[in-house]
């Protein structure tokens, strides 16, 4: 790269990529679909925000990657990136104006082009777009040149605005339930999007809060560190108490829909904790984990549902059988794969999961398992006269389950068995040489994980009131695996965080249903590229993953100069 010319070149390259991304976003219909969703009422829509974010991010990256220390060079590069991105989009609009792209791309509708040209004619519209691109580039460049604290403040404020705007449909009804909050709600939100006053207030509020925390945060942390151990303990304990209290009243605050989401997240936490033992602790990559979930569900269905008429036990008498069967199958399916490692293990377990699903689905076993119609009329769980029917009630059951399972896996982690599992994960041969019995250790991992999964399945069956083979496909296994890896392998809080992020958020954003999995996939990829250790990793694992990347460690210290000062 020649000096001088290189400056522009790198910016243009990034701009080209960003332009391609922007065109893709337009073509898959996100811009159009989100054009009716206002972040700020009658001001800026979610679709526009999306495109703008792409452009700004590209320009920011261009500014960051500019060689040489000169700020002007950075600005120029950022502007070049923004302009190029806009130019690519402009070219696409030009193309769309003259060709009928709709024959192939169903979302290349006239409305899309109208949106992209801001309802102007082609020429002025594209010019306007170019202007916005260049201006956005310069803004992003300036943002990069600003001090880290300003960057953090502005970033948090903008992020909060977007988040509040996106989550309006969820937050507004919840707020409206609670007297005093309803007032805030009316003031903050218009019918569609944040009100202008609300947006300004939110921006300023979150911005100043972040700024304050950036200034005072370290001092508060230091003050906490200086407290006597006993006091620290009290503070921590009261924190936990607060969390516990919150967990107890959560469904009452949140209302029906959000409680439903909470129960789904809870079921995934249960599943995740189980798989965490198999994959996170023992390092056995199991892709057929859904099989045990299915076994738990079907055991409950067969034992309690009057529809098939074999038994009609109550949930509580059937539950031990469900867990027992889960454990049993964990061992049974574990035996054949004892000697397999890595990907072979993954694919064999995937095979088991599918075999079980296909068998359940088949007409051959229909008289016993209900075939494709599944089993219905599973009675609700009851303790005495109290029935657990609504999501708000089932939530408590799941919470109890999560607490028990969380406690067990927390205690197991530091037990002799837990150590053996981790030794197995690090190196099977060495573990064996150290006297660990591979067979029993592996089988125990499979069995424990399967038991947890069966418990989750049991609750799932009664929650739905019926079971279908289609609820147990391989995507569930993959989702659970993603939950624990995104959360941070081997870490219990990680599993919870992962379940909230990967199961809860997509459920909440149902209105974006069409793009839910698209975003899910993109986030997974981005996450693995940027933060492979997960959201809340186990301490050991974090060290391991960052051992070999000194440059990343450098980047981290560079990005937080507050601490080094």
């Amino acid at each position, binding site marked *: 790269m020649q000096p001088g010319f290189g400056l522009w070149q790198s910016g243009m390259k990034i701009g080209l990529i960003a332009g391609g991304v922007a065109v893709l976003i337009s073509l898959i*219909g996100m811009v159009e679909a989100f054009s009716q969703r206002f972040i700020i009422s009658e001001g800026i829509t979610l679709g526009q925000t999306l495109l703008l974010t792409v452009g700004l991010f590209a320009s920011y990256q261009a500014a960051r990657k500019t060689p040489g220390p000169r700020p002007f060079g950075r600005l120029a590069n950022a502007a070049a990136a923004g302009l190029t991105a806009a130019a690519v989009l402009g070219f696409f609009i030009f193309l769309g104006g003259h060709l009928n792209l709709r024959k192939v791309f169903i979302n290349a509708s006239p409305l899309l082009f109208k949106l992209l040209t801001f309802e102007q004619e082609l020429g002025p519209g594209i010019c306007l777009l170019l202007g916005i691109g260049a201006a956005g580039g310069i803004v992003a460049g300036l943002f990069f040149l600003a001090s880290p604290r300003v960057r953090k403040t502005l970033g948090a404020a903008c992020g909060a605005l977007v988040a509040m705007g996106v989550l309006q449909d969820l937050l507004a009804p919840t707020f409206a339930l609670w007297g005093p909050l309803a007032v805030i709600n009316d003031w903050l939100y218009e019918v569609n999007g944040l009100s202008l006053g609300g947006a300004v207030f939110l921006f300023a509020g979150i911005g100043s809060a972040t700024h304050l925390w950036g200034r005072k945060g370290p001092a508060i942390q230091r003050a906490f560190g200086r407290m006597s151990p006993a006091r620290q303990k009290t503070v921590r304990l009261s924190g936990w108490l607060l969390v516990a209290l919150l967990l107890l009243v959560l469904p009452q605050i949140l209302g029906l829909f959000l409680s439903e989401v909470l129960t789904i997240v809870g079921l995934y936490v249960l599943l995740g904790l189980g798989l965490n033992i198999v994959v996170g602790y023992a390092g056995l990559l199991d892709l057929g984990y859904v099989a045990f979930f299915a076994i738990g569900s079907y055991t409950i269905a067969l034992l309690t549902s009057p529809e098939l008429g074999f038994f009609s036990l109550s949930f509580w008498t059937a539950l031990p059988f469900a867990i027992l069967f889960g454990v049993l199958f964990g061992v049974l399916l574990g*035996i054949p794969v004892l000697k397999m490692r*890595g990907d072979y293990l993954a694919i064999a377990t995937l095979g088991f999961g599918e075999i079980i699903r296909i068998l359940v689905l088949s007409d051959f076993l229909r008289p016993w398992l209900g075939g494709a119609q599944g089993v219905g009329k599973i009675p609700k769980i009851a303790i005495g006269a109290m029935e657990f029917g609504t999501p708000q009630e089932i939530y408590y059951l799941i919470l109890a389950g999560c607490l028990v399972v969380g406690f067990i896996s927390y205690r197991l982690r530091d037990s002799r068995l837990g150590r053996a599992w981790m030794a197995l994960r690090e190196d099977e041969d060495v573990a064996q040489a150290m006297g660990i019995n591979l067979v029993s250790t592996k089988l125990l991992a499979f069995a424990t994980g399967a038991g947890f999964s069966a418990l989750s399945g049991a609750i799932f069956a009664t929650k739905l009131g019926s079971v279908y083979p289609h609820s147990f496909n391989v995507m569930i296994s993959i989702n659970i695996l993603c939950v624990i890896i995104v959360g941070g392998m081997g870490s219990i809080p990680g599993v919870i965080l992962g379940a909230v992020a990967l199961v809860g958020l997509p459920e909440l954003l149902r209105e974006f249903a*069409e793009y839910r999995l698209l975003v899910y996939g993109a986030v997974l990829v981005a996450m693995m590229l940027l933060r492979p250790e997960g959201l809340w990793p186990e301490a050991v694992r974090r060290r391991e993953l960052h051992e070999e990347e000194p440059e990343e460690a450098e980047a981290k210290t560079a990005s937080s100069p507050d601490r080094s000062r």
Partner: protein
Amino acid sequence: MGVIYGNLSPSRGGGVANRGGPRPTAERKEMNLKGWRERITVTDFLMWVTGGAILLLIVWGSAATLASGRYQGHHWFDFVVFGLAQGSIYALIAMGYTMVYGILRMINFAHSEVFMGGPYTAYFVAAAFASSGFLDRHPVLSLAVVFIVSMAVSTLIAVLLERVAYRPLRNAPRLVPLITAIGASFFLQYTFRGLYGSGFQAYPVVKILEGQWLLGDFRILKFQAVVIIAAALLMAGLYLFVQRTRVGKAIRAVSEDQEASSLMGISTDRMIVTTFVIGGMSAGAAGVLYALMFKQVHFFMGFIPGIKAFTAAVLGGIGNIPGAMLGGIFLGLVESVGPSLFLDGLGIVAPYQLKDAIAFTMLVLVLIFRPTGLLGERLAVKKA
């Protein structure tokens, strides 16, 4: 290189004692016996019993089916031809899985989307040809164009995938690229859904591929024959490319040992990209064959063939190209012949529903009794 790692049962005592030079035969025999007894565990025994039972069931079921005489020779011939056609498509897709695995040691989960993207895009070309009548006037030429478009798009997706998602993760722990691949798979599926819509698109009918050839009692549907021949030619070409050309040799060298081959002056990055290009091309071609066979495309169409093809790659011994071919064809045959042959005789209702179960059972059995797959020995050492 001689050690077959995956096959190794925990070697205790016996193996080492055997190495101690010449001994009297009686003693050696006793040592051998003792070694065996020590090496075989309860679980091994259980596995052999289970395997034996399944084998017995298969033999019994087949015998009962054949004895009942429900299916005539031409039925079996139909099953076999269908299985071959299906299997050769699996084999072509499996090529991409196995080559990427050989070179990067990762399951390219998104390969099923590489397989979907090509034919889905080429559909629009095919539909345009069909509506303009070009398809009927120059069927061979237009099919060639459809193939080229599909292969080009699939290759593009594969290369982009490698560049964006996998290259930054070369040295990451092995679960990380797997999750990335899963994420990329979702992303690609729903991107295509957004681009082309969520409905099924019916591939235009190619008139010269309709109809059948009769050989006495036996008939071959024309498109099945074409699929088999095209897939065989492609695989042969691919095999020759990897075995006989300089680039192929370089690819094999990189999958053998990345560091050493880069010391020998081979550009590792370029070879990895080439691998993705080859995988993408064969997936694109397989995609068109699949579309010709099943006459429709859909954004989710890659998932099931993808899993099957990966199964085929593992069956054949992952990382091994002839293995993937063999595994694919074997899987296709088992799937199409198996339900009628093994299960019908056992009196199982609607055996065809269980064809996937047979495929996966086969997979698990192969993995248990021959963990390196049918042909996989070469790469087994570095695995696990």
